[in-house]
């Protein structure tokens, strides 16, 4: 059998959910067999993904690869069509990687293990599906499908306010996805042909006003997911209540769906509207960066602090998407993968710390570094990664967004100047809240109340292993970013070219993004 024609993506998407169906029949008394079963399934799926990537995926090709298409419901023209290009592939691999680690991270879960692992595997499928499907309707289904496991995982295994958080999450995202459905249907019925295929939808020529409306609808839906201020308030609640493994998925993968869809649909399918909306995106990105960094600084709850820091980091994704340069878009992609890794590792460590201290309030911690030096070291490493220390992936991503945006010729000099200045304020704010957090947890004299009442044991090998797995790519991409950027470079390059040709062709008379008089970058004489 030829490797290239094997239905890799379908198999990898369906494998976890199919395997999950067998969970009720597995004889298991102490909950140990199931976790090994789930881990094995996750691992096999990840290995398959990596195999498919190395064998069937050509990184120099910007088009969709590993494509499959089967008619599902002929009357609705609904097709099961999957494929991966440079935008999907890194995130698909990230999903396999993080979800498998999240299963390993859920070792201590003892409450209803069957249901828990069932849901984890269901999420595995749903997440892969979102990144791989190439049919708009199917995308919507996958998007919705993955909400249900999250809702249950939040509302059963969450913290004290879990029901409130879960309800808020489901209302927000379901509300948001209604916009996807409406916009998708509108796009499908626009023009002469009725189609849900993403490629065909992108090829359609929409009127500019229609584009603007659809763009706005998509933006609302994805702004909830990403999240973008002011639609972010579900996130601190959901993240504040979730258990560590769910947390890893929420921060590591779910947030990336918003960014992915924003690039795939808003930028890829509605480029003319993107030219109009881009400055708004930049402004929202800046608000995200600064506003969330400040709220994170004031937060006293550890999980919420990190949750807000996620929002802050997503600001760079938004600005990268709106930069109209290949470098910026590339930086946005890198930031998504990088934050997926860093966010997951931080949330895992927060969970590990909570397992020991049984409190998330920073005032009740202090000086635990002496008892838990390994967790201290790992927490420090991951926090430094999060504050974009060079040598780690976050730095490269932010730098690419910075350079990409600063050298973008789509915006006026003044606008860029102010925007870069404000973005750079985030560079100062991030270490303030992350280092204060470290100081309050680990540094200083030991907090006697805590030391006397809680058993503070250091990290076990499983925990060290998980963090090591996450740190290897973080440092790897930080030292040599081409490892990752080359995977999607061809696709982002083509997308930027398309975007620029559309955006600049439409604006012969006036610069659409120039809010202020243009001061062109000086000519360089070679």
């Amino acid at each position: 059998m030829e490797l290239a024609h094997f239905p890799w993506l379908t198999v990898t998407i369906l494998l976890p959910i199919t395997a999950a169906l067998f969970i009720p029949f597995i004889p298991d008394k102490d909950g140990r067999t199931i976790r090994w079963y789930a881990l094995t399934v996750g691992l096999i799926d990840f290995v398959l993904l990596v195999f498919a990537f190395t064998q069937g995926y050509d990184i120099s090709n910007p088009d969709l690869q590993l494509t499959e298409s089967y008619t599902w419901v002929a009357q609705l023209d609904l097709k099961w069509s999957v494929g991966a290009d440079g935008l999907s592939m890194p995130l698909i691999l990230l999903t396999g990687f993080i979800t498998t680690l999240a299963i390993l991270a859920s070792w201590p879960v003892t409450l209803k293990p069957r249901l828990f692992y069932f849901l984890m595997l269901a999420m595995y499928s749903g997440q892969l599906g979102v990144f791989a499907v190439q049919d708009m309707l199917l995308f919507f289904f996958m998007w919705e499908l993955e909400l249900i496991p999250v809702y249950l995982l939040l509302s059963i295994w969450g913290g004290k306010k879990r029901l409130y958080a879960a309800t808020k999450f489901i209302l927000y995202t379901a509300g948001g996805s209604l916009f996807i459905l409406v916009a998708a249907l509108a796009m499908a019925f626009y023009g002469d042909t009725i189609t849900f295929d993403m490629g065909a939808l992108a090829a359609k020529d929409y009127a500019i006003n229609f584009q603007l409306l659809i763009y706005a609808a998509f933006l609302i839906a994805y702004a909830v997911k990403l999240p973008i201020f002011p639609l972010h308030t579900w996130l601190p609640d959901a993240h504040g209540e979730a258990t560590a493994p769910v947390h890893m998925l929420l921060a590591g993968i779910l947030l990336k769906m918003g960014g992915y869809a924003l690039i795939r649909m808003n930028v890829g399918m509605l480029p003319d509207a993107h030219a109009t909306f881009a400055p708004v995106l930049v402004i929202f990105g800046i608000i995200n960066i600064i506003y969330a960094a400040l709220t994170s600084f004031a937060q006293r709850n550890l999980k919420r602090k990190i949750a807000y820091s996620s929002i802050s980091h997503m600001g760079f994704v938004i600005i990268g998407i709106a930069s109209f340069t290949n470098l910026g878009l590339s930086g946005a992609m890198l930031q998504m993968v990088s934050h997926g890794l860093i966010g997951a590792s931080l949330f895992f460590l927060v969970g590990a710390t909570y397992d020991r201290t049984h409190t998330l309030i920073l005032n009740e911690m202090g000086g635990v570094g002496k008892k838990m030096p390994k967790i201290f070291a790992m927490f420090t490493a991951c926090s430094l990664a999060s504050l974009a220390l060079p040598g780690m992936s976050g730095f490269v991503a932010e730098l690419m967004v910075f350079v990409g945006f600063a050298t973008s010729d789509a915006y006026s000099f003044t606008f860029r100047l102010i925007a870069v200045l404000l973005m750079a304020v985030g560079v100062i704010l991030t270490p303030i809240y992350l280092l204060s957090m470290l100081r309050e947890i680990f540094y200083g004299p030991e907090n006697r109340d805590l030391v006397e009442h809680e058993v503070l044991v250091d990290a076990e090998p499983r925990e060290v292993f998980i963090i090591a797995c996450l740190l290897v790519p973080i440092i790897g991409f930080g030292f040599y970013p081409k490892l990752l950027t080359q995977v999607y470079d061809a696709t982002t390059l083509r997308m930027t070219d398309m975007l620029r040709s559309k955006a600049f062709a439409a604006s012969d008379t006036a610069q659409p993004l120039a809010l202020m008089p243009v001061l062109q970058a000086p000519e360089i004489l070679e």
Partner: protein
Amino acid sequence: MESIEAIYEYAWLVPVLPLVGAAIVGTGLISYSQTTSTLRRPAAVFIVSLTGAAMVLSFLLFFSQVQGHETYTRMIEWASAGDFRITMGYTIDHLASLMLVIVTTVAFLVMVYTDGYMAHDPGYVRFYSYLSLFSSSMLGLVISPNLLQVYVFWELVGMCSYLLIGFWYGRKPAADACQKAFVTNRVGDFGLLLGMLALFWATGSFEFEVMGDRLTELVTTGGLTTGLAAIFAILVFLGPVAKSAQFPLHVWLPDAMEGPTPISALIHAATMVAAGVFLVARMFPVFEQLPTVMTVVAWTGAFTAFMGASIAITQNDIKKGLAYSTMSQLGYMVMAMGVGAYGAGLFHLMTHAYFKAMLFLGSGSVIHGMEEVVGHNPALAQDMRLMGGLRKYMPITATTFLIGTLAICGIPPFAGFWSKDEILGSTFEVSPVLWAVGWLTAGITAFYMFRMYFSTFEGEFRGTNKEIQIQLKREQLMAMGASLGPGAMNSKELTLDAEAHDDHGHHSEVPHESPIAMTFPLMALAVPSVLIGLLGTPFANYFEAFIHPPGEAVEALAEAGGAFDWSEFLIMGGSSVGIGLIGITLAVMMYRTRQLDPSAIADRIKPLYQLSKNKWYIDEIYDVVFVQGSRKLAKQVLEIDVRIVDGLVNLAGFVTLVSGEGLKYLENGRAQFYALIVFGAVLGLVLLSGIT
């Protein structure tokens, strides 16, 4: 000749060797912490020998550069997006090879010293791995071929500094200090990042010389106004301002003394803080075109030099005193750069690296000795009021410290004289006012350094005086209370008392000389502190023949060297030695022969005394404006987030709930009905957009 080329090809090993050491030991610490922690000697020997190998390699490169080998650069493509490429690599030129030698020698000696100083510390192995990591980052910094790569390593040395200042993380002051250091440096990096981006935007390059050339071209052709170019350069200069502890971002350096003393010597005196001066040297092609920038640089340096010296006068903590002295000396270097005395600034960087490292290591030796008497309380062991007469007990430390003191005071023929004199001479040619500031500072320097030497090593030993001990403890508690603020009393604070009491075990009545592992580096550093200045004498300046600004012809320098003016040298040198001697005499009268009473003088000029003792109140001002201000702002933003943004959401939820009750009759549960609504909405949307 081939072997020489091979050295250049493998020059990347210089930073990589220590990195390998740090990585292996660090991995061991995380994976098998028990085992690794017990393998103290093997881990230390492993790391020290790797650094030694890097040192040998650096010397080979240096000698090859001295013999006139051309600049060697190797680049690889690091990141790319489409046509855009960012390259990284390394470059070995005169400046880089000199810095390699300075960094590796000081790092090597500090590592040897650490074996003695940290012998009883449970974090011995961890300390070595951090040290090694730092050496690696610093070496990477000096061989960086472009501004972007400098920025990368710039942040990495900052991280190592953070980890090492907070090495004793159980101490609250250390915890505060490391965060302060990192954040203050980030403020500088904010400028550096913006400046770097702006220069890249304007010139399309991160390479130093290309940036300089293109910027000049742009300014002359009018593509870019001089003002804008100056702003970009000053933004870049903010980086060095933070890293080299220049006013107004100097506040982190004195606090950084909470780290173990070997760190203070290596990072916060000899190498990392000098990185700022190094960056200015690398950016020289850009800066020298812009007179405004040069003026700003020079004045920042001069002001910092004076300010540091003025604060150092009244410090009682021996390490804090040395820290302000470092700040002051860095000010000299920056001033030299600002007046265009490129060679002189770097010459002072080199001499200062050696004698200041020695002074710090000497102070560490003193503290090590004092701890035997007063216990492991930094507030007691580092306070000069408890010292005195130590020369009797620690002769090697005292002698080397005296050499260092003479060197920093600018007494010929010690190293500091030649470099400082050269700076002052070059400054006089540019601006007599700046020269006067530098000259006055030289006098203050001589005074406070000899005050420090006399209080520590001469007179009677006061370490066993219980009265002073109790008074110092009280001061410490008060300082703690003030920093925590009223109402912050909790169980954490009470540990301070316990800590102070629990180490009465190993007391002896008198301090002892430190072990050979600590005295050997002191003696080794004494040699360059005495002799290295002779490389840069005005009549035979080998140093400047080797180190000169890029683009400047060597012949011009040689000519200038030929026309050496003895009378000018004697006037300039004589005046700076003269004021140094005045300072020393004053110190002798006040702290040795006791003809003048220091406290009486302090009382007479109370406001000035308080200003100096309280470090010009800058920490207090920053605390109110920036620390409290940012906390308040953050709290308000969080309030807004919780009350308004999230409040609206919850209100909406509530309203829906209420109206949902009323809308019940619409919910008939038929899917077709929902589909109809959705379809209607779509139809409306399509129609609407079709019409418009």
